[in-house]
């Protein structure tokens, strides 16, 4: 049993962006545990100042290379809210379907390409191509379908082209939607086979009570717009996002941190699931039950499982959405935009948690102020507190450096952090 150990990860791998982990344990006592964000800032909020409204979704979508669709949709919603544009049913459904497919591709990338190597004792997915070819191909098949749908509806899987304020530049063809529906039905089986495999993994047994923040479902599992809720009982309107996030600056971090009722809170798949479990599709709830995952779960490693549950949910819901779209007559792809003075705020659940965009416009529709609050930025404080608790727990138990290093990396990775996005 080793009572003194040091972990120094610079930078953490298999995550988006640059963050470091440092842990020092001496004689069984924790001296230091630090999660630091060293990513270079890109100043998107300043860049947007003085730009016309139509630049907003195009430029802010580029905050993130994984959830560019989520950013684009949040940006569009904020502009539409400012200009008093209400999207029609067709646009709402197509946007939700696009959103679902981004969730599916992002969760699959994280679970199968970034997290799975930890449970199979490899440094990356690349050796798994030989040793577990069937698993990699299955994951690639799911990811490909999700990306193909994004190409079709959004025009492009990364930095979408068809998504605009007022609707879409072009609509998909119905025969394409029909084909996707068939492929989605097939993929449910692939997700079940992946679930069976993931059930064999032993997730670290670690819990720390925290607050979970997400959109509040009214009749459905929420993704685009609506009220904000926390597991500590806070309930606010979308427009009051600043009071829900309370951003502050931390020394040594280029990302801002957030807090609400206590020292930190968590957003993401686990937060959504904890706050809106009853709205999950029954098939998704069944998968959750098979992992003994029910609200409120306080094990951060279970975020991986919550992502798997959400994959099943979005696939099932997308099949229904496509059915509804196929049954309806397609109308005009977009409505006219009339800029006006005002403020627009949007909250959208993107793969890593709740995302806020806010713009203030002058009467010509030029942006005078921009604010984006990113899911990973909201998670940083919670990651820090988890890391301290985890290190404390294992300091007492006595782990060797390698073991603690892996656990600490897996903990941060479980949040699926999007670090360059959080700094933006």
């Amino acid at each position, binding site marked *: 049993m080793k009572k003194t150990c040091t972990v120094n990860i610079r930078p953490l*791998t298999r995550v*988006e962006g640059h963050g470091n982990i440092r842990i020092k344990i001496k004689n069984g006592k924790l001296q230091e545990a630090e999660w630091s964000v060293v990513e270079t800032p890109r100043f998107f909020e*300043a860049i947007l*100042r003085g730009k016309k409204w139509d630049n907003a979704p195009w430029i802010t979508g580029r905050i993130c*290379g994984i959830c560019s669709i989520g950013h684009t949709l949040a940006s569009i919603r904020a502009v539409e809210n400012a200009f008093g544009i209400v999207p029609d049913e067709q646009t709402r459904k197509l946007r939700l379907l696009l959103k679902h497919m981004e969730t599916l591709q992002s969760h699959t990338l994280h679970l199968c*390409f970034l997290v799975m190597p930890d449970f199979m004792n490899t440094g990356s997915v690349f050796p798994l191509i030989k040793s577990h070819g069937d698993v990699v191909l299955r994951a690639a098949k799911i990811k490909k379908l999700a990306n193909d749908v994004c190409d079709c509806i959004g025009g492009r899987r990364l930095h979408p082209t068809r998504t605009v304020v007022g609707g879409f530049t072009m609509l998909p063809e119905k025969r394409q939607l029909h084909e996707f529906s068939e492929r989605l039905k097939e993929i449910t089986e692939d997700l079940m086979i992946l679930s069976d495999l993931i059930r064999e993994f032993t997730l670290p047994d670690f819990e720390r009570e925290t607050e979970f923040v997400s959109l509040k479902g009214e009749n459905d599992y929420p993704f685009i717009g609506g009220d904000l809720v926390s597991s500590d009982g806070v309930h606010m309107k979308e427009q009051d996002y600043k009071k829900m996030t309370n951003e502050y*600056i931390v020394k040594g971090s280029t990302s801002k941190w957030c807090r609400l009722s206590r020292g930190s809170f968590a957003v993401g798949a686990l937060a959504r699931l904890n706050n809106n479990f009853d709205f999950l599709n029954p098939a998704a709830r069944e998968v959750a039950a098979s992992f003994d995952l029910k609200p409120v779960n306080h094990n951060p490693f279970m975020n991986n499982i919550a992502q798997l549950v959400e994959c099943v949910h979005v696939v099932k819901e997308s099949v229904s959405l496509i059915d509804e779209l196929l049954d309806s007559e397609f109308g005009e792809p977009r409505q006219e935009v009339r800029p006006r003075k005002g403020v627009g705020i949007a909250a959208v659940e993107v793969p890593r948690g709740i995302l806020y965009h806010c713009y203030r416009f002058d009467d010509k529709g030029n942006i005078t102020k921009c604010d984006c609050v990113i899911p990973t930025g909201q998670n940083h404080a919670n990651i820090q507190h988890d890391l301290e608790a985890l290190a404390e727990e294992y300091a007492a138990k006595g782990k060797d450096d390698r073991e603690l290093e892996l656990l600490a990396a897996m903990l941060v990775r479980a949040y699926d952090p999007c670090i*360059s996005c959080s700094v933006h």
Partner: protein
Amino acid sequence: MAESRTRTYLGVPMYRPRVAFFEFSSCEGCQLQILNNESTLLDFLSLVEVVNFREAMTEQSEDYEIAFVEGSITRDDEIKRLKRIRKNAKTLVAMGSCACFGGVNQLKNRFRNPAGVKREVYGAHPVDSGPVRAVEDVVGVDLRIYGCPVSKDEVEKMVLHIAIGKSIVVPKYPVCMECKRNENICLFEFGEPCLGPVTRAGCDSWCPSNRAGCWGCRGPAEDVNLRQMIRIMEEHGFSEETITDRLECFGGFLSLMKPERGKGG
């Protein structure tokens, strides 16, 4: 090891280069495009040996031949890291608009007061960040892959050409040519601004084919007549502000635009 690095094609040994991926100030989307083309991913991975890819793998090595560099350069630690990569790599590829021109990040350079930019985001808190620079402003670049994002097909084609020793040809003509070939209705007819007539082709008119006007993410085609392009856009009723928004968005046209630049305060 040596065995894993040689493949044969018609009995002739084929070179399997050791490649590394690095990211600087960016969204890391161009790297993700590598993992995004699922149907050809396994073939691509058999063509090269990936020894550095922080976003996807834990192992790291300094022994590589081709370095793909994504992102723009904004801080001294980035300059240091980039120079080290340049020293290690035989071929350094600038991948994507941020690496080639500074990308959307360079839009912050349009403000005359850099302290104001920092204050807008961080208030009085001190933050280390300099002007946004393209990779070639710091080290020599051997090849460029244009686009925001890059197209995976183009990345794969480039790597294949390096592996089989074939020369790499980037189109000199504009996106407009590809757009016509794709039989699209001209976006000017829909009242949509578009830089297709002056932007370097190679994306197969990705945006215009989706009825979204081109924002020039691949930079200028060769011998473009920007003045004439601006006149045509003005004739179609597009404002100077709209034209500037497009031309300055990714940084590729800056050298042609000066001194009109710097409208931000």
